[in-house]
């Protein structure tokens, strides 16, 4: 059962990382146009460099 001492902090940490990542995506407006973004990846226009 000593393994719990590692596993529980690790699982909590990973959960926290997920939460922080989600908050980051919300704050950087990545959910403003889900439909458009899904289709934009099919366009060749900005394949070489990202649209600034």
């Amino acid at each position, binding site marked *: 059962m000593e393994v719990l001492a590692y596993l529980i902090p690790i699982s909590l940490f990973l*959960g926290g990382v997920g939460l922080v990542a989600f908050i980051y995506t919300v704050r950087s407006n990545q959910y403003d*146009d889900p439909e458009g973004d899904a289709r934009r990846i099919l366009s060749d226009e900005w394949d070489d460099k990202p649209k600034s």
Partner: protein
Amino acid sequence: MTAQLSSGTAACPGCIAAPAEPARPVPEDVQIALSLPGIHCSACIANVERALNAHPGVEDARVNLTLKRAMVKAAAETHAADLIPVLERAGYEAHELDPGALSATQSDKAGRDLLMRLAVAGFASMNVMLLSVSVWSGATDATRDLFHWISAAIALPAIAFSAQPFFANAWSALRVKRLNMDVPIVLAILLALVTSLWETALSGEHAYFDAALTLTFFLLAGRYLDYRTRAAARSAAEELTALEVPRAIRLVDGAEEEVSVASLAVGDLILVRPGGRMPVDGEIVSGKSELDRSLLTGETLPVFAEAGLAVSAGEVNLTGPLTIRTTAVGEDTSLHRMADLVAIAESGRSRYTSLADKAAKLYAPGVHILSALSFLGWYIYSGDIRTALNIAAAVLIITCPCALGLAVPAVTTAASGRLFRKGMLIKHSTALERLAEVDTVVFDKTGTLTSGTPELTNLEDHSRADLEIALALAEASSHPLSVSLAKSTRDAGIKPARLEDVVEVPGYGTEGTYRGQRVRLGRAGWTGATEGDQTAAWLAVTGQSPVAFLFSDSLRPGAAEAVQAFRDGGKSVVLISGDTRGAVQTLADKLGIETWIAEALPQDKATHVQKLSDQGRHVLMVGDGLNDTAALAAAHVSISPASALDAARVASDIVLLGNDLTPIADAGDTAVKATKRIRENFRIATVYNIIAVPLAVAGFATPLIAALAMSTSSITVSLNALRLR
């Protein structure tokens, strides 16, 4: 969207403060927002962006497909009016939106706030669930206690943060001694936390931390969906409203100055240019022109205007500049009186109770009574307050309206998403439910079933020579009839005749000389003809009797299909218009509408709709003019096109973004399906409760059963809603 909006200032906050920078006039960029109801695919995104970026002055254009909108960053002298034709050439319908109204992203802050709470509840519940699964699969003694304590440490702060909207709502309901859906929710969450803490402290077997968190998570998901649908509709409707900037040109000692309409006073002289809309009620002092009254009265025939004629706010000046002395401003204008009619009619609207409210009314007291009874029952039976409290908590958790909370928003989100893709905007949250009940459809004529632009009907009746002269004269004017005449003759391959001295006489027509003879195209009286009851422009060549070019209002695309679809669906269709009998009858016959009323005043329209409602009919009103607003508000549910006056759009529940009317009929079908799904969802939720509640009351419910019941019911309800797409 927000990033683009703020980038103008946020990119260089230091620049403003830098004192070394000399005050050099930097041409400021403007943000232009365009609504694009027609876009739907990746090719559309690319085409629109390419077309916009190719336009001189445009620095950056970005399409948002979800909102069907394009944000354009451009040099200061670029106007939306220049960009709209560019897009129309590329094949996309576009309307200008007010970027000022768009920057009201404060409303979006509320959405983001909900999303954060949702995320916290979601991640916390995942972690707690992990620990709970270990407990359910056999962790005992100290390990179980440890897991429970860790769960408590995660759940308590997470719930304190994420369940705040429920706490606030429940408190505001309780303060006025009412019950709403949030009261049982809060009670369940709090009771679950309290009993679980107690159990944990006594190293008991069952703790409901995971249930409290998943409950919060699912309910927040429902709230968020609900919020998103309404926010999207609300912001888009606000943007449309912000289209019309209320400005007027005031003449002070002969000099023109642009002022806001609100600052006009009675007695002010104002100038209304051709194409402009009357900002106030008044009397014409000088100038001759024609007035388009269709938005106020539904008449398609322009009215001749000269000094002395009284004009009402909302009329459109067609040909010549007019100077007007203001007689009424603000609340006294006829436009405003119309808005008062709306307010009266609207008070009837609030009687409708949504399905969700009906369910909540049954549900909230039922749950409390059930849970209180099981607490009492178990306390009397066992005498142990701990067991009794545990069972009461289990009953509350299991009956908690996860599925009920998701049942309506999940369906409305799916349905309004579907309608939005077809170009309809649901403004009101119960609009779909009301639309599903509709059995009578009332249409307005001008601007709704017809596009409001005249179409030449008797091209073949004229000799080539006449047509050539008419075309030459028509091209000298921007009057709607002239524009239409020029377009259809050009399309027929006619070349303009060579005329000399062509002048437009405002209010009358155009005049010129053809081979030494005077030729005129214009009003009946001016050309020596007698006026008929159809919209017409007359051509007079000296020495010949005048000939008439007849016009009829062209049908809006999809009008015939929409009417047909409603009739096929067994709904009765009525046409009510302020236009003349002849014009209304022609259109009614063309579309196969049997019941029609012509020359109706605004009040008549509203009373007629009211009369239909009193007969127990559920009326859908489709209209665009000011004369329709009262009727729109009086109807059970109402739709107006985006081209409508803002008063009409405000009064209606659904706004049609595109030009095509066909989606209206689809909307009816979607609404019926959506309501069916909502009812199904309620049934699903009830079935789960019927199975799970006896278990809970009997004391057999474990946290595992609670978690299973809650998740499966919520997921089935959401999946059922998704079938609507």
